[in-house]
C-alpha cells in the first residue's frame, strides 16, 4: 500500500502525458511523447551513458573533496571558541552567496575541462558541511566528555569516541543535501562552457530543437542524482543503525 499510491500517481501522469501528445493537443516540438523519449534512451544509450559518466565524475569528485575539506575545517575550528564565533556566522552567510554564479569566471581561469565544474561542486558542498559539522561536533553530550576527561583520554580519542558519533546525524544531513546539489553544480556549470557532459548535451540538443533528446538527458541527470542520494541514505542507515528511519507522516 505504501508504494502503491505514489506508483499510481506516477502511472496516471505518464498516461496523461502520452494522451496529450498522442491526441495532438500539444505540438511535439513543445512536448515530445514519452514513447519518443523512451526511443532516445534505446537509440542513444551509449551517448547518454558517456555524458552521464562525465557529469557524475565531476559531481562525485567535488562531493568527496568539498565534504572532506568542510569536515576537516569543522574539526579544527570547533576546538577554539574565537575561531568558531568568527567563522560560523560567515560560513552561514556564505551559504547565501551564489557560488554557481562564479562559474563563468572559473571557466575563463581554468578552461572548459572538468576542473572548473569540480571547483564549483566543491564550493557548493563545502559550506553546508562546515556549518553542520561544527553544530554536530558541539552537540556531543558534555557528561560523556567529562567521563573521557576523567579517564584521561587524548583529544583524538575524545573526537573519535564522543564528538564524531554525536555529529553523525548532522554530517549526513549535509551529505544528503550535497549529493543532490553536486549534480546541480556540475550540470549547470556545463551549460556555460563544456564539450561533454549532461549539461553540454542538454544545451546542444535544445539548440537543435531535438526535444526528446533534451528530456532524456534531463531524466538521466535526475536519476543519477537520486541514485547518489539513495546511496548516501543507505550509508547513513549502515553507519547509524540506531536512528529512526522514517521521515514520513503516515
Amino acid at each position: 500500500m505504501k508504494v502503491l499510491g505514489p506508483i499510481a500517481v506516477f502511472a496516471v501522469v505518464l498516461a496523461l502525458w502520452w494522451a496529450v501528445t498522442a491526441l495532438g493537443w500539444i505540438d511535439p516540438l513543445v512536448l515530445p511523447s514519452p514513447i519518443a523519449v523512451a526511443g532516445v534512451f534505446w537509440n542513444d544509450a551509449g551517448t547518454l551513458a558517456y555524458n552521464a559518466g562525465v557529469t557524475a565524475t565531476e559531481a562525485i569528485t567535488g562531493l568527496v573533496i568539498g565534504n572532506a575539506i568542510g569536515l576537516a575545517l569543522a574539526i579544527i575550528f570547533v576546538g577554539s571558541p574565537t575561531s568558531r564565533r568568527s567563522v560560523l556566522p560567515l560560513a552561514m552567510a556564505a551559504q547565501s552567496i551564489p557560488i554557481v554564479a562564479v562559474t563563468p569566471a572559473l571557466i575563463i581561469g581554468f578552461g572548459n575541462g572538468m576542473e572548473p565544474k569540480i571547483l564549483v561542486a566543491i564550493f557548493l558542498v563545502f559550506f553546508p558541511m562546515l556549518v553542520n559539522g561544527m553544530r554536530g561536533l558541539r552537540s556531543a553530550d558534555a557528561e560523556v566528555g567529562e567521563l573521557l576527561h576523567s579517564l584521561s583520554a587524548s583529544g583524538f580519542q575524545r573526537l573519535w569516541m564522543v564528538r564524531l558519533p554525536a555529529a553523525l546525524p548532522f554530517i549526513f544531513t549535509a551529505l544528503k543535501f550535497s549529493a543532490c546539489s553536486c549534480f546541480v553544480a556540475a550540470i549547470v556549470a556545463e551549460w556555460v562552457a563544456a564539450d561533454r557532459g549532461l549539461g553540454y548535451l542538454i544545451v546542444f540538443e535544445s539548440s537543435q530543437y531535438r526535444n526528446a533528446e533534451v528530456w532524456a538527458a534531463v531524466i538521466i541527470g535526475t536519476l543519477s542524482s537520486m541514485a547518489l542520494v539513495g546511496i548516501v541514505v543507505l550509508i547513513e542507515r549502515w553507519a547509524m543503525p540506531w536512528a529512526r528511519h522514517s521521515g514520513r507522516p503516515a
Partner: protein
Amino acid sequence: MTRQNAVSVLLPPGVLVVVIVGVWAWMSAHGIIPNYLLPPPLVLLKALVANASELLRHGTATTMEAVGGFAIGSLLGVGAAILLASSRWLRQCFFPLALASQAVPLAAITPLIVLLIGRGLPSILTVVSIAAFFPMLINMTRGLREADIGYHELLHSLSATSAQRLRMIELPAALPYMFAALKVSASAAFITAIVGEWIGSNVGLGYLIVISGQYFKIPALWAAVVVTAVLTLLLVGLVTLAERWAMPWAPRESTS
C-alpha cells in the same frame, strides 16, 4: 540585544571579513590571484559604481523573478500542504513523491520548462516557484500535523469548524516549519533565477554574468555576483525579521 552582546556577536566575524579582504587585496597586488580570475577589491568596487544603471536594470528583472517565484511557490506549497494534511489518502499518494523531489536537481530541469513555456520571465518564474513549492509542501504537511492533540479535543468539544481548527491550532503549530521552508527557498530563489537565466532569458543578472564572462569583462561579472549575494542576504534577512515578528516566543539561533 545589549551593547556588549552586540559587540561580542558582531566583532569576530567583522574582523575576519577585514582580514579576508586584506589578504585578497595583498594577493591580487602581488599577482598570486590572477586578475582575470578575481579582480582586486578596489577594481570590483569601481565596477559596481560604473555599472550601476545596468546592474539596476538587470537586478530588477531578476528580483521580480526570484521574489515572485518565491512568493507564488510558497503560497501554493501552503495550499497543497493544507490539502495533504486533511486527507490520509492524498498524503499516501503524494507525500512520497514530494520527498523524492528533494533528490531532484531542480535547477537542471530549467531546459524542460523553457521548452514548454518559451524563453523569458514566465519560464524563470515557474522554475523558482517549483523550487520554493516542494520544501514548503513537505515542511507544512509535517507542521500542520504537529498540533497538540489536547487542543484538538478542546476545540472539538467547543464544536469548532475545521476552518477554525486550521486557523487556531494547526497553522500556529506549523509556523516554525513554515519559516524553516521559507529560509531554505529564500536563499535558493536568486541563484535558481540566475541559473535559469543562463539558458532561458536575455535579461537579468544571470544573463549579465554570462555575457560579461563571454566578453572577458571580469569586474562586471563579479559586480553582478556581488549584487546577487546582497539581494539574497536581504531576502533571507527579511524572512528572519518576519519570523521574529510572527513568533516572538521562539528562541533565537545562537552561534556561540
